Structure formats: C-alpha cells, structure tokens
C-alpha cells in the first residue's frame, strides 16, 4: 500500500475520531447518567466524577418502579422465539427461492419487497383484527408472529442473496454423493451460510428487542406481561422524567443486545466457501 501523506493521515484520523465521538458520546452520557442521583441527572453544570452510586440500578432491579425482571424475561422470550422462527422460515424460503424454479417465484419476492414499504402504524389495526380472530391477541406468541411478518421478508431477501453466492455445483456434488435435497440444505448449505444466518439472526433479534409500538398494542396491559421497551415508559411520566432510572434501565436493556451481537459477530467471517470451486 502506498504511504499516505502526513497531512492526509492527520485529516483522516481527525474525521474518524469525530465520527466515533458522535456515535459513542450519547451512549457514554447515558452510562454516566445511570450512576447519578436523579436530582443531579440533568444539571446545568454536569460533572463526571464524584456522583457515582449504583442506587439507580438497585431501584430498577428491585422492582420498585415496576416488575423489571418480568419485563426482561418477556423480552428475552419474545426476541428469542422471533429469532429462531424467522431464521428458520427465511432460511428455508431463501434456499427454495435461490435454488428452485417454481411458478409465482417472482411475485413472491416482489411481495416480500412490497410489505416492507408499509409504516408500522398502518399495520397495527389490521394485525390487531387478525390476532383477535386467531385468539392470539394479548399473548407473546401473537407478538412473535407479528414480528416475524416484518423480519421474515427482509431476512429471506438477505439469505436468498447469500445462498446465491454458494455455487450450485456443491448442491449437485452433494446429491451425487448421496444426500437428499433436505440433506444438501442442512449439511452443506447451512454450514456455509453461517455469516448470512448470523446477520439474519441479529436483525430478527433487534426487530423484536427494541420494538415499542406493536408491543404496546398487542400485549395485555398487565404490568407483568410487558416487554422492556414498553416498560421503560414508566420512567417517563407526564410531569416528571426519572432520568437516572431511565438511564440505568436503558443500560440494562442494551446488555443482551451487545451479548447477542458478540455471539453473532464471530460468525461474520468472509470467504467460508472459498476453495469450493476454482474461481
């Protein structure tokens, strides 16, 4: 690689530093706020040090303001179920669309694209009706299905694109070697699509984890059945916002997302199918 000129190097680092600061600062500020007493959370002269207590965390976790642990459990359950279901559905669909020719294939993919264009708000009423008819209104399973309606089309697109990059010669070699069509999918294609599956899983998880509108509309109003994103609203009241508690809860909410991302990113390696075919 050619050496950069000193000035270019300085400029580049400055730009990158600024961008990183812009990205990281809000999170950092939330973290700082989460350790401050409520009264000092929004001061005119904010200070970084000497105000650290874990009171906010203790209060949030003790359930003083609402059953935080129950919300947490609900969110984990719903997000996990959404992730598993949409990865499974979109992987099988994506593979079928990538490999097989069947009538209606084009319109199927087109419809997947079209459904992404509707804003959530428009969908709430019809989805509510459908869930009511299915007897799933107010249940976690109902909400999982609703999340799948957004996650599956997008993930299918994503995975179809990924499967397309895996040479079909591999499918054929597998079939000649004695695999059934499902065996080819399970033992050859899925292991090679790990990066695609990882991204898909993460996307599906996030779809369910941070979502507020559907969760508040479709889950029952009982405190114990809320998800985290809905529950956080108790800290924001009409006249008063409990910044310290909100910040502490937010940090706690972010932790699982970070964990999932950490688990997933190990699979984000390029070139898994390198060496399959002479390229």
């Amino acid at each position, binding site marked *: 690689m050619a050496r950069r000129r000193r000035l270019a190097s300085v400029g580049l680092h400055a730009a990158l530093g600024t961008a990183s600061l812009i990205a990281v600062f809000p999170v950092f500020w939330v973290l700082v706020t989460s350790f401050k007493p409520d009264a000092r959370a929004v001061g005119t002269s904010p200070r970084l040090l000497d105000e650290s207590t874990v009171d906010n965390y203790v209060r949030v976790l003790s359930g003083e303001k609402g059953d935080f642990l129950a919300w947490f459990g609900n969110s984990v359950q719903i997000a996990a179920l959404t992730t598993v279901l949409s990865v499974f559905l979109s992987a099988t669909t994506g593979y079928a669309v990538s490999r097989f020719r069947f009538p209606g294939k084009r319109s199927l993919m087109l419809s997947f694209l079209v459904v992404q264009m509707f804003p959530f708000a428009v969908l709430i009423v019809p989805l509510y009706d459908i869930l009511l008819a299915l007897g799933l209104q107010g249940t976690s399973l109902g909400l999982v299905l609703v999340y799948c309606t957004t996650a599956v089309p997008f993930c299918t697109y994503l995975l179809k694109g990924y499967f397309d990059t895996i*040479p079909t010669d591999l499918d*054929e*070699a597998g*079939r000649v*070697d004695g*695999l059934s069509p499902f065996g080819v999918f399970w033992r050859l294609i899925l292991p090679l699509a790990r990066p695609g599956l990882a991204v898909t899983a993460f996307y599906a998880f996030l779809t369910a984890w941070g979502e507020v509108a559907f969760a508040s509309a479709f889950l029952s109003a009982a405190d114990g059945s809320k998800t985290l994103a809905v529950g956080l609203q108790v800290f924001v009241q009409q006249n008063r916002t409990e910044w310290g508690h909100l910040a502490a809860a937010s940090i706690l909410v972010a932790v699982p997302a970070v964990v999932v991302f950490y688990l997933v990113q190990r699979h984000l390696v390029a070139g898994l199918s*390198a060496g399959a*075919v002479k390229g």
Partner: protein
Amino acid sequence: MAEVSYVKASRVYSGNPPVRAVDELSLDVPDGEFLVLVGPSGSGKSTALRMLAGLEDVDEGAIHIGGKDVTNVPPKGRDIAMVFQSYALYPHMTVAENMGFALKLRGVNKAEVRKKVEEAAGMLDLNKYLDRKPKALSGGQRQRVAMGRAIVREPSVFLMDEPLSNLDAKLRVETRANIAALQQRLGTTMIYVTHDQIEAMTMGHRVAVLKDGLLQQCDTPRALYDRPANAFVAGFMGSPAMNLKTVPLTSEGVKLDGLVVPLDRRALDRAAREGLREVTFGVRPESLALVPAHEYGMDMTVELVEELGADALVHGAVRIGNASERFVVRVDGRTPPALGNRVKVAVRGAGEIHLFHPESGLRLTD
C-alpha cells in the same frame, strides 16, 4: 462396474421453439470402457453427462446403468461418482472428510472410511494434505481431491465433466495420463466430457462426437481420425484442422488450381449418381507435402510459418477458381519455407483424401 446405455434419450428445454439440448441420443457403453464425449460448446455433451448423473431430467427416451432403467432414479440411487469442472469440494470439510463423505452417508464405519480414504489418497499422492481444507490447496491438488472423492466411492460408473479445464497446460497433460492410467487400473466404466479434441483422442477407448445435441459419430480415436463420418467430425478432430474446401468436380477427380487430384472410381461414381458438380474435399495437413517446382502440384504462397519444433505448419494461399483459399501443410521442422515463398504442394496419396457431400456433409469416400 456396469455398462451404460442411452436409449433415444432427449433433453428438451421449454421455450419457443423448444431447445433440444440433447436429441435422441443412443449410445451403448460396455462395462469398463473409457468413453469420451466431445464437441464444441453448446453441443449438449455436458447435458448428456448430467442426464446420466440424474442432475438433468430425461424428457424422452431412457437411460440404463448396469441393465437397470434409471431414468427416474435420483442421483443418489444410481451408484455413480462425478467429478465437476469446478471440483465442487465441500469447503467446510477437510480433504479426508471430503473424500469420505459419501461413505459416511452410507453408514460405513469410521475405520473403514479412513482406510479407503487413505488408500485413494495414496493413489493420488494426497496423504500429506488429508487434514487441510480445500482453500489451502493448489488447483492441481484440488483436482486430485475431486478425483479422490469419486474413487473412494467405488462407483459402477465415473462421470467426469471437463475435469482438466482449470489446470495449466503442463499439469493438464500430466493429469490426462494419470486419469487414463487410473481408469485402466480400476477398470471402471468412465464417461468423460471435454471440448478438447486432443484429450478425447488421447484418453478415450472410444470417442463420441456431438454437435447441436446430435450424435455425429462414435468410434475409436483412430477410426474417427481416418474415416470421419462427416465434414464436421473431419474438421473437429485433429489439430491443426483438416483442410476442407468445396471444389469443382471433373470426370477424373477434383480440380484445385492447376492440379487435378485423381479420385477413387467409386467415390466419383457415387458423386455422379447424386448429380454433384462440387464436393467438399478434405485433406489433413500431414497428407500434403511440398514438392520440387517442376513436379505436378498446386502453387501456394506462404503466408505464415508456425514452427513447432519437430515439424512446422505452413499456412498459405492457393487460388481455386477465382477465390483464394487457405491451406495448412505440415512439413519437416528443420527446413520450412520462408514467408512469402512460392511453393508447390501435392497430396501424398489418393487414400488420404476425404470427400464429403457439399450440403449434407456426409462422407462420400469409403
């Protein structure tokens, strides 16, 4: 081990008009034979092979392996092994796992699989690489792994789809000989697809030439070379290609420039019966020779000399009627004529002339 037969097998792609990629192919391959399918791109040779593998539907006719009709049997039920042009190695498995995969699927116990894999690896000189992933191998090694994966299976038929086309020239010649020797040793029926007529000539017991989905001729390399059934086969087999020219017919023979090449009586009779005024005249470059200026021959102006070492190819122009036609002559490599020289060219012997029907391309000489 088994014999293979195509019984009027066709692959038709729907469309308007429908494309007959393989058109009523009938071919019997006896047990243990090395058959090469050769043809230009789009001739249907790969499709024919894939039909045998079960990767392509057979729309009409049937395919038999070992006397059993397998037309509607999925690939895994056909007891075949295939080597792909791209090798199609499983990238997430090691070389040993790649080679043993089919046996593992069949439920063969681990020790047995390991033994067979090591045996095949020994044959192919792959022992050192058994624990590597395909991406850590060179092109030639990958090709051998693909071969090994087929050998380990001990199938009744080997199918090879242009397995050498991704190798460099030197390695290709080497591997070509290895594959032929391997087939000899294993005695397994092999169907081998290539577009390279040299591979076809050197490897096959018999060679089937395809064009536009139609079988042109299937015979031993020698017979294909000496008695091509039509002008296409004549032009396709042999390098450099046979000189094929459409020339006027006289009562004695064909007329080239000043030279009248006398023809076999029976060929002339046959041409006369068909009422032909012209014929397609074919003569291989090595059947032409340079002769001294005072002898009977056609005048040629040398336009290009390709020196190959042992011999040289002289390309030149000859006037036939009002047109200038190019001929290639194979001459001794040590004394080639120079560029721009005028030389005399004659046909070595009447037996080395091929005559074809100018329209149908069918052979007229015996």
